[in-house]
């Protein structure tokens, strides 16, 4: 509660929180909020490529679909990809980092070596290779993102666990006979939870960007799924006339990623004073 109140006092973090909340609500209530919910999957050629107006708030696309309605349903895809992929990445990365950081043996070296390999290529490049191999589908995008994203958490948790390893309270727990699993789960994990939460929030934004890029390249869920990246790719054939077609999904991506980034920055300041780099963001 105290955390929330401190977060609310921070204007840009509050803005981030509001944006993320709006995204979630838009995804949940996409059906009642949409002005033309049937337009998401069906075609309406007579009304194609209309500019924004009273009937079609954000204009229509090449199939006559209402862009506003499609954006709302696209929010579902975006959230699903981001949440599921990030969750998998956290579920793999955090245990790997904990184990590698807690023990100092061959296994921990090996685990960190493996995550180094993944970090040796920009995430999107590897994700493209994997998504291309598996074929364009939403579950493959999620898989490609999870496989390439977990090392970020592994690295973070590894570093934090290593530095905690020499703390007195950990030593005390070990001396009292706590099993390694108990120490990791009940003593190390709670202490590093805040940095994991911050990294995860900012990571959501990153995941959304990479997912949109995959969609843009044609590796995302196949049409007529209203995936934001794919919508931008489709719009290119109708520029410069149908500018709204390209603008609307891009603004949606921008706002959502910005929301997660601002929220993450705010959380960092509130949860983890150590990471506050001299008031790095004008607060």
């Amino acid at each position, binding site marked *: 509660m105290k955390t929330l109140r401190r977060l609310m006092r921070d204007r840009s973090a509050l803005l981030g929180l509001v944006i993320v909340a709006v995204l979630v609500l838009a995804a949940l209530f996409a059906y009642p909020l949409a002005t033309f919910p049937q337009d998401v999957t069906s075609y309406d050629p007579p009304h194609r490529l209309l500019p924004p107006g009273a009937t079609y708030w954000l204009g229509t696309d090449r199939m006559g679909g209402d862009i506003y309605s499609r954006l709302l349903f696209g929010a579902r895809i975006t959230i699903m990809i981001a949440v599921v992929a990030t969750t998998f990445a956290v579920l793999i990365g955090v245990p790997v980092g904990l184990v590698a950081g807690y023990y100092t043996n061959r296994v921990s070296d090996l685990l960190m070596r493996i995550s*180094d390999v993944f970090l*040796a290529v920009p995430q999107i490049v590897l994700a493209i290779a994997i998504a*291309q191999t598996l074929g364009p589908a939403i579950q493959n995008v999620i898989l490609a993102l999870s496989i390439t994203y977990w090392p970020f958490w592994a690295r973070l948790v590894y570093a934090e666990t290593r530095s905690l390893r020499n703390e007195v309270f950990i030593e005390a727990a070990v001396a009292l006979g706590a099993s390694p699993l108990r120490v990791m789960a009940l003593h190390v994990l709670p202490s590093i939870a805040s940095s994991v939460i911050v990294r995860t929030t900012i990571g959501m934004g990153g995941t959304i960007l990479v997912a949109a890029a995959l969609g843009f390249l044609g590796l995302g869920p196949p049409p007529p799924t209203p995936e934001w990246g794919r919508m931008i790719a489709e719009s290119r054939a109708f520029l410069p006339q149908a500018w709204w077609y390209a603008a609307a999904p*891009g603004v949606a*991506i921008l706002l959502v990623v910005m929301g997660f980034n601002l929220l993450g920055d705010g959380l960092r300041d509130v949860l983890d004073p150590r990471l506050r780099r*001299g008031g790095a963001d*004008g607060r």
Partner: protein
Amino acid sequence: MPPTLFGLVLIVFAVSHVVPSDPARVMAGENAPAEQVAALRHQYGLDLPLPYQFVRYVRDVASGNMGTSLFTQRPVAEDLWARLPATLELALYAIVFAVVFGVPLGVVAALRRNSWLDHVVRIVTVSGLAMAAFWLAILLQLLFSMWLGLTPVQGRIDGWGPDPITGFYTIDAVLRGDWETLGGALRHLALPVATLALPAMATIVRFTRAGVLNVMSSNFVFYQGAMGIPRRRVVWKYILRSALIGTLTQIGLIFGNLIAGAVVVETVFDWPGLGSFAVSSILQSDYNAIMSFTLFVGVVFILVNLLVDIAQAVLDPRSR
């Protein structure tokens, strides 16, 4: 570094040979006749046991043979080398641009903390980091090329590029004294460089600003002020030097982002570099090409990080 490279080869091999149930089928296409698939399988040694295939793959890659592009029918390594200068030219200009504008902006934003300038810089950096690169590219294209007609929509040059010396069109044009080509090359560079530079600049501004704020409150700055060293000299010489160490560690990461950004940005601008090569390979399911691209980028990335480590050791005596 060698174990990382080996691991990378292993991953790329796994993605290309183990994950797909039938790589030959993917290469031949959905509707290819069974005999053709079988012939491909034999031709590429895909009917051999996996460990054997892996050893062969490592041997080939180690000797610089990355296979033949299924589409251009040329060795992939040759294609990649031919396209490397185009991407490097883009990435280098973007990084120079990002540093030249990003570092001073970061310093000024830190010095005038919470001024209107700081807020503007902050809005620009926050949105620069949240923007999808391909979307920014399309927006710039729409605005500057299609509506205002100031820059070319696509491509690297009109007609033929200058005779290659370095492969960088701008440098080659200067070396040959061909000013008209130089102008054309620069006009073509403007939008893709701007697209790539914005997120890079945003990162640099953030880290420089944080670094400067951090150093500003340290004892040695206070001391230098007390000693009467001019403020300007303290800021631009001593503070900046310490503050830039944090920024420098980010350069490796920024470079990775540039390459990643290039993949989509080159596609939008039809830039004949590595990124558009990768995307057209994807669209044509050109296995060898896409895997070699991954490997190639990995190697470049590892080398850049090595350079960053060296530069850091030069700049920061503590890390030696």
